[in-house]
């Protein structure tokens, strides 16, 4: 996830301090992804270096509460007890944010998914019951989904950001469970038809080239 763009989005509302940015980031993402303040300051430094944000001076943001730099953050080059710097987005930063929102993330090539790998390996290792392996993962995933659903049940839906994050997580886990169900069924049919690991057909050269092109798009 892009912390960089999330900070730009928060700054597009007006100048803000580092600590304020961390608090708002966590609140706006349903408090699910914790962010340490060091990460906020390093990201801000890079954004400033790239001309996407600039310092807005020690005032102006109207940031209430503790605007002083906490002692544990002096490693970041700021002076403990000194007034914090506020940051504001530059026109280049606004353009960068707009561009990022519109560009789809790269989902075009299959990630080297560890669970897919485990199932692929399980069908070749002698003495391994692939269906048992699949069930173990299915149980674990459904258990995780139960935990997310409990969180959703306890929440009345007033925290919109949190509800969106929970939905995303449930749909993601659900899609993995569905893949396991499909793999389970496909393997049973293949076994009934006499499939054995040693008899796996080789793809033809042109087909192989096409497959590798899709898989390699990201690299």
């Amino acid at each position: 996830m892009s912390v960089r763009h999330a900070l730009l989005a928060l700054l597009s509302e007006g100048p803000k301090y580092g600590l304020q940015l961390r608090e708002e980031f966590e609140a706006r993402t349903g408090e699910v992804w914790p962010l340490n303040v060091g990460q906020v300051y390093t990201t801000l430094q890079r954004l400033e270096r790239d001309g996407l944000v600039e310092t807005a001076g020690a005032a102006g943001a109207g940031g209430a509460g503790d605007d002083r730099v906490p002692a544990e953050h002096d490693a970041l080059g700021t002076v403990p007890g000194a007034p914090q710097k506020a940051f504001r987005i530059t026109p280049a930063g606004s353009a960068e944010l707009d561009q990022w929102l519109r560009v789809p993330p790269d989902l075009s090539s299959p990630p080297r998914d560890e669970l897919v790998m485990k199932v692929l390996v399980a069908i070749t290792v002698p003495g391994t019951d692939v269906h048992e392996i699949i069930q173990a993962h299915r149980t674990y995933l459904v258990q995780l989904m139960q935990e997310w659903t409990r969180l959703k049940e306890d929440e009345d839906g007033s925290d919109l950001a949190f509800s969106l994050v929970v939905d995303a997580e449930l749909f993601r886990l659900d899609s993995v469970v569905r893949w396991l169900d499909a793999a389970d069924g496909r393997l049973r049919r293949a076994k009934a038809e006499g499939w054995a690991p040693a008899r796996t057909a080789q793809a033809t050269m042109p087909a192989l080239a096409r497959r590798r092109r899709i898989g390699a798009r990201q690299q």
Partner: protein
Amino acid sequence: MSVLELRSISKVFGRGAAEVQALRDISMSVPAGMMVAVMGPSGSGKSSLLTIAGTLEEPTSGAVLINGQDVERMSNGAKAQVRRRTIGYVFQDFNLLPGLTAAENVSLPLELDGMSARRAHLAGLKALEDLGLGDQARRFPDQLSGGERQRVAIARAVVGDRSLLLADEPSGALDSTNGEAVMRLIHTYCKRGTAAVVVTHDAQLASWADRVVFLRDGRIVDQTMPPAGPETLLEQSS
């Protein structure tokens, strides 16, 4: 004491070469307040399990106990009474009677059980109001949306304080929002003390349950652990 207890249930259909073993040695117990989801592919025995738990069908071997009573030892009259008073059924296609209003559909089981029409009607109305369907009481099933119809069916299943709710793909005919609403509702009843068994092939819907049991070829192959506290997830991800 469990509301529902299945002891080594097996079910065989057909004989000889045509014999199909639908359930093999199934044991499970569902205490008051617990919602259990049964997941499995088609043909895994989910629906047989539910019809046997609901005393609508007899197992080939094994025992079904409802509130501690062995169903096999009950007279037909007593079994019929358990079906009317103790167990509520929810089906995928709602099974509402088209010629009756929502309120009449809900109060019918109470009237069949000997309650006066007036008292049954009031109890039916209250059950509908509890589900936010008070305004729809006089409507006929074909005047209701799918989600409303299923909620009426749930009202009919829980009316009269029944202790066991059995649902076969209750969200199967609904979109994801309405499906979720139905599961949320069933879980709410469970938190008030009802026991429920819900059959589904959908992991998102099953995840509303307190325990998920996985069925494959008529056997329980695995089940999830009792739910952990809501804090564990966020601790893990941090």
